[in-house]
């Protein structure tokens, strides 16, 4: 069980990079393919809004699991 979770954790960066790559590819290509023929003019705008939110989610996934070291003592800004 522990071995499985370690394996999954070690693959996480590759999975993340793959997902990020696919997401960016889709972000660039879908509006020029599927959506360029769409009868609803606002769909491209809506798609890119979802794309932007997806980018935030993908970036936050690894960043929020960082084990932040305790702050150093002293004056900070």
């Amino acid at each position: 069980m522990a071995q499985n979770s370690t394996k999954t954790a070690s693959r996480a960066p590759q999975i993340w990079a793959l997902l990020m790559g696919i997401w960016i590819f889709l972000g660039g290509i879908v509006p020029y393919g599927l959506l360029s023929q769409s009868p609803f003019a606002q769909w491209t705008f809506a798609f890119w809004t979802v794309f932007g939110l997806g980018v935030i989610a993908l970036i936050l996934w690894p960043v929020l699991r960082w084990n932040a070291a305790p702050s150093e003592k002293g004056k900070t800004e």
Partner: protein
Amino acid sequence: MIAPLSIWSLLAVFALLGLGLALLAARGNRGTAEDYYLGGRRIGGVVSGLSYAATTYSAFMLVVLTGLTYRGGVGALGFELIYFAGLGLLVIFAPRFWLVGRKWGFVTPAEMLARRYGSPALGRLVAGVGLVFLLPYCTTQMAGVGLLLSGVTGAEITLFQAVCAGAVLAVIWTLPAGLRSVAWTDAALAALMLISGLLAVYFAITAIGGVSDFMAQLGQERADWLSVPGPGLWSLPTFLALSVPWFFFALSNPQVAQRLFILRDIRAMRAMILWVLGFGLVFTFIAVIWGFAALILAPDLAQPALATPALLTSGAIPSVVAILLILGIMSAAVTTLDSIALTAGAMVARDLAAEAREGRQILIGRITVLVVILFAAGFAVVNAKIVEQLAALSAVGLLVTVPAMIGAFFWNRATAFGAMASIVIGAGVAVILVFGQGMSVFNPNLVLAVGGAAVLGFIAASLASRPKDSALDFKSAIADDLAQMRIW
């Protein structure tokens, strides 16, 4: 039109407040170069996040991106969001920059590469390329300020006067305390940019009749603008040509890459990324929606770059909000300019005059800051063609440092010769194609050729040479820290 006197009065108040903040920030400095250029590496998450955002999101957003939306429609949103997705590079590189910066005391990305590959000449080359392509970019910030102020006052404020005002603000906010004053003023101005932008968009949409009327009018009258390629500008090749080099902005532009050295700890880095993401997404939508609103309220402009001044003077935006937004756009320009000037100062002091004593390095940096700001102001006024071309080329030109950056952390076999070959060949290809062959920056073959040449040159020349004995091994040196902090 907006009365010049009200703009001058508010600018004066604005300058004084900024100066007060800068002087207050100066009290934190202890006279070392690390303090002057990096705020002693003790900057917290909120200030660094807002400062990073203000440095990244320049006058380009509410002048050029708005103009691109006005001219070509929703493709501008996609382009800016692909750039936004490039912030994903921070997940991998931000902690690595920070860790090696702490370990070896790097002040600039050029210094980091010089030490990693064991070659001071490489540091000088990276700094040189940075200066050549960044200085013209500063000029466009100044030109944006000039276009805006002369546009909203019917040329009663001249380009020269506007540029002088921008230069004075940049000088007084940078010189007193270096990074500390830049970061503090950036943070305050980022808040102004966001608030004024949100207010302006709110009033513009209200003047159109609310969100549903706004969307309905766009759908009925400007349906072409709501899809790609739209009315013509955003063909797929153009989209790729603009998006690909900007995607690497977080690594290729030294003024933002250097920000990764200033942070107090990883907690502050996480907060910085959260702030940049939030600010970036909201500000992108502000700029694009603003462009669409201009299309409805100020249609048929001959010059799309005048969309913002035209909308501000259309009567739809209350004068107070219009002046606030003008200050917001000036802030965006000046915060980008002063950050670039300070980074240029650091590169000249640390990479080109590396032997200078600590105090001398600060003096050299201050002189460089002045020179950069005067350069930007001067060329914004004379509007030199070569500077315009270099500015347009800046994103592609700076891209040539990216292979060496990636190799520094992930390829131990990479060499100084490989890094130098990559930069020289990549920059050479860029200059030959643009200045020799007349290739447009809207042509995707340019970024493919430059990026391809830089990568191939890096790999081939690295394999054909040996790493120097003095080269550092970043990968092993930070492996334990990365594992401990659960960083990929």
